[in-house]
């Protein structure tokens, strides 16, 4: 292709390219790309701390009201679809593996695998949202939406709750909708971030020396997974399930 003999060997060419790339990515206030990376990662952890405060409030409210209204919250929990909740847990856990592998191969500078695993992660995120949509539709069919589709008599006649406990079930269901809704919003934003990373990786924006955006995006994704890890027992598994029901 090149008629002149190459001035640089391939290895030297790669090294030069990396040096130029490193210079280009390094912001002037940092000593090294490593320091820049660690700063970015810690910044994400601080952001996640604020997210812990956000979801922590909801979990705390849920726990306190479960303590005050145990029977209604257990009945409400048993009405949720634990099968879809469980499947979605597995989907998110696998997506955590795929994105950590994306980081792993970014560190090794394997561009193709980074793109592959980021796209797999986004696909699993979409799978999660798909199952979530099915679950929401089933909740709609089963009158589990307080304020819109909710049948108070059903809970008294069929599930044996007292009239006093019906508003308590509504409260549990509100926790369910708000917490899973905010979680789904986080998953949606995560998918957007992962797709942007996949695009940048495809364009050759990252190298084994510079991949902190992929790493930081992965941290956020894992956090969203962790929230769901706690949502599973706190929403779906509060009561005793029975086989065949």
């Amino acid at each position, binding site marked *: 292709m090149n008629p002149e003999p190459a001035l640089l060997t391939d290895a030297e060419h790669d090294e030069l390219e990396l040096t130029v790339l490193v210079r280009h990515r390094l912001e002037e206030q940092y000593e090294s790309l*490593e320091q820049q*990376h*660690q700063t970015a*990662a*810690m910044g994400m*952890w*601080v952001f*996640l*701390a604020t997210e*812990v*405060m956000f979801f*922590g409030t909801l979990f*705390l409210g849920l*726990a*306190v009201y*479960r*303590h*005050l209204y*145990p029977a209604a919250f*257990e009945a409400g929990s048993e009405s949720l679809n*634990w099968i879809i909740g*469980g499947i979605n*847990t*597995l989907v998110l*856990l*696998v997506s*955590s*593996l795929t994105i*950590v*592998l994306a980081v*792993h191969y970014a*560190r090794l500078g394997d561009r193709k695998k980074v793109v592959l695993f980021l796209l797999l992660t986004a696909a699993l995120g979409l799978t999660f949202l798909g199952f979530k949509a099915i679950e929401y539709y089933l909740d709609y069919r089963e009158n589990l939406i307080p304020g819109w589709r909710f049948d108070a008599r059903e809970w008294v006649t069929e599930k044996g709750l007292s009239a006093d406990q019906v508003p308590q079930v509504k409260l549990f269901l509100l926790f369910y909708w708000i917490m899973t809704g905010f979680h789904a919003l986080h998953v949606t934003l995560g998918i957007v971030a992962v797709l942007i990373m996949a695009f940048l990786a495809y364009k050759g924006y990252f190298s084994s020396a510079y991949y902190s955006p992929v*790493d930081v995006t*992965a*941290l956020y994704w*894992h*956090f969203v*997974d*962790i929230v769901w*890890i*706690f949502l*599973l*027992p*706190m929403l*779906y*598994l*509060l*009561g*005793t*399930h*029975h*086989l065949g029901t």
Partner: protein
Amino acid sequence: MAQRIISVPTYVTVLVVLVLLTVLTVAVSFFHVEGLWHIVIGLSIATVKASLVVLFFMHALHSPQATRAVIAITIFWLVAVFFALTFSDYFTRGLLPYLPGH
């Protein structure tokens, strides 16, 4: 970052453990135990799972001290300040029913 790299088989092993713990936590929900035990068992398993994700997937094991400090402070705030202090109020209400002024 110049840090020790966790191998792919380790990541896969962690995932397998996470999946098994998920199956376990769902299986426990079929046992007839008192409601509170469902929460205790469910949250214990969830805490183990979350720890595995933080330590291995989020690389807390190989993170710099400053990052670990942020993680430790966050957990301390959530568990000790937020949950423990709130529960020390709500869980103890009614223990002294005849307290003057209540």
